[in-house]
């Protein structure tokens, strides 16, 4: 019942926050979010699952309650965790707390609703990672979109309406495509399943019980379903060329929301790809591995190139997410322990690091009111701590050893290089070039914004352009705005950075359970 308690806590918190006065909402939200955080960390510590959730593994914190019958299918409330979902749930709770803390400064109106929506979002995210019955899973999957839509549309930047609608419509259409793909499989399975339980479906599919549907044979049916589900989830990941909602949503979203968007929402896509496409239809995935790998490599390189061309710090980080998620896809397609496990580890690591970077950009934006690389320089002079965090986060993103970013990418490379599909080594080698481009744009951005003589140009209402030379004079009025960040802005950064380093030095903390969970998948999937 502990998972229900976790989700319930978030939902209850959401309701409570909606009726809390704005003045107290921030503090209450932060305090409340510690509850699911502590609970999920306790669960993490006491995690006892074994094997893969969909392949008959021993689940932790499992509950199954029969709910209703819908035609020939029973709908169940079936939740449980394995080594893939547990770290992701912990990631969700950690990032929610970080996002709430980093929202204290920028969110200045309708706070109670903001924090209420954030907690509602957290509940949805946990549900997506925990639920194992397709119907309920889909409810959570869609429920995540709702708070996200409002968070972007109400508290976003100047083009928030456009970004929010684009995000919502794009991902919703994708859900539809995915839904059709999945139900093709469900109907194709016919009588061999009696519920929409994902483990049951996965095992039935792997046992080859797929029949034909509407005159289409099982082979074609599988491929079609795979393609539809892949297309659906690809939007969420996002994979080039269905990535264009991401930069808009990121740029317009308030920073705390960007943290969650990049940190956890993108992981929903890869998590679902792993659970559905790569676990349920391994043969199709392996048959078309080279094509999927091509998509992955294009995402890596193209995303990185796009990031290189950006001037907006948030856009840079947003596009680099496209690049990083490409590594995840590349790892999944490898079907090796390091490939799939590394992909999962990379999800975790990218969640922490991109969250950290977005939060850093947010802290800078809060004081300078600009995110343009050209508009500022020498921020290190005024915001040394934030700068350190930004630098550390950037290097983690570049894959500096002893941070989780390095290991995530390294595992993926290691796993994919000797994978079975044709050209695996070449794909990997090309994808690795991403680490050079990533270093290029992040170093460029850091050099321009953080270092050099201090100056800030803002479109601030009262100031117009203001310029001050670096060095001594710190008494003039114009500089008053540029001050060290408050402690509550720094705490989430430090928290995330600490996790990034801990995971980078002791990856076994999470890689152990991940490896345990992907093991059956890999041996069952083919290459060892």
């Amino acid at each position: 019942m502990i998972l229900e308690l976790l989700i319930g806590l978030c939902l209850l918190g959401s309701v409570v926050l909606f009726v809390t006065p704005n003045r107290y909402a921030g503090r209450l939200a932060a305090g409340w979010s510690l509850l699911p955080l502590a609970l999920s960390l306790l669960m993490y510590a006491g995690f006892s699952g074994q094997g893969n959730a969909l392949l008959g593994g021993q689940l932790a914190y499992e509950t199954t309650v029969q709910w209703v019958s819908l035609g020939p299918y029973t709908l169940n409330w079936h939740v449980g965790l394995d080594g893939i979902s547990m770290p992701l749930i912990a990631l969700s709770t950690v990032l929610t707390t970080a996002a709430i803390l980093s929202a204290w400064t920028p969110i200045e109106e309708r706070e109670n609703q903001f924090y209420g929506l954030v907690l509602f979002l957290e509940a949805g995210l946990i549900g997506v990672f925990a639920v194992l019955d397709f119907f309920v899973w889909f409810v959570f999957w869609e429920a995540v979109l709702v708070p996200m839509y409002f968070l972007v549309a109400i508290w976003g930047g100047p083009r928030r309406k456009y970004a929010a609608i684009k995000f919502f419509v794009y991902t919703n259409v994708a859900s539809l495509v995915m839904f059709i793909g999945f139900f093709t499989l469900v109907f194709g399975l016919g009588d061999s399943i009696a519920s929409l339980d994902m483990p049951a479906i996965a095992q039935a599919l792997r046992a080859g019980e797929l029949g034909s549907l509407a005159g289409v044979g099982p082979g074609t049916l599988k491929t079609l379903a795979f393609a539809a589900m892949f297309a659906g989830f690809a939007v969420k990941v996002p994979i080039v060329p269905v990535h264009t909602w991401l930069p808009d949503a990121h740029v317009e979203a308030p920073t705390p929301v960007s943290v969650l968007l990049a940190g956890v929402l993108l992981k929903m896509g890869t998590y679902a790809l792993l659970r559905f496409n790569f676990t349920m239809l391994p043969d199709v995935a392996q048959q078309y591995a080279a094509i999927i790998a091509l998509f992955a490599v294009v995402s890596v390189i193209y995303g990185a190139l796009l990031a290189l061309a950006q001037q907006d710090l948030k856009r840079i980080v947003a596009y680099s997410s496209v690049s990083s998620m490409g590594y995840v896809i590349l790892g999944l397609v490898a079907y090796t322990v390091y490939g799939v496990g590394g992909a999962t580890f990379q999800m975790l690591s990218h969640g922490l690091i991109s969250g950290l970077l977005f939060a850093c950009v947010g802290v800078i934006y809060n004081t300078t009111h600009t995110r343009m690389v050209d508009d500022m320089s020498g921020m290190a002079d005024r915001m040394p701590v934030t700068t350190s965090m930004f630098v550390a986060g950037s290097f983690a993103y570049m894959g500096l050893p002893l941070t989780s970013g390095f290991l995530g990418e390294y595992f993926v490379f290691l796993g994919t290089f000797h994978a079975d599909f044709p050209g695996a080594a070449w794909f990997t080698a090309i994808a690795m070039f991403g680490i050079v481009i990533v270093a290029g744009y992040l170093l460029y951005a850091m050099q321009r914004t953080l270092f050099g003589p201090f100056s800030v140009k803002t479109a601030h209402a009262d100031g117009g352009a203001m310029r001050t030379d670096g060095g001594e004079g710190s008494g003039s009025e114009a500089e008053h705005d540029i001050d060290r960040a408050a402690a509550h802005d720094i705490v989430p950064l430090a928290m995330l950075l600490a996790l990034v380093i801990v995971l980078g030095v002791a990856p076994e903390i999470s890689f152990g359970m991940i490896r345990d969970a992907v093991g059956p998948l890999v041996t069952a999937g083919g290459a060892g």
Partner: protein
Amino acid sequence: MPTRPHLNLGSHLLSGLVAVALFAVLATVFLTASFGAPQGFGGAQVTPSIGYAMFDLSGGEIPSDSFLAAFEIIDLVLLAALAAAVMLARREADGKLIGIESIRTDGGRPRDTTSASDTDVETEPNAAADGDGDREGAN
């Protein structure tokens, strides 16, 4: 001047043709369909049976469903309709209309002091502009 009804012919009757067409279709269908012989009630008492059915009482001779809940709901609906009719029709003592503020036919746009129809005509271009604005944002 004494008036008498006169036939108002004109193009507005054209849409009535649709109704005629519908009748034609229905008539064709009904006349070509075949029903068995009606069972009828066989001389049983119809009206008391209706009463029994409405109040869920046993004793009706003719089979029927029970309708107590539906009866009560209809009761409420009538009451609500009565209240609504009164509310819609009420007039304040000083001649000012009430209920207008709460019942708007313009989609809830803020209204100014001019008469309703004028305002609506004026706000129309704005509404169109809003729509366009959204689309520009989308580009």
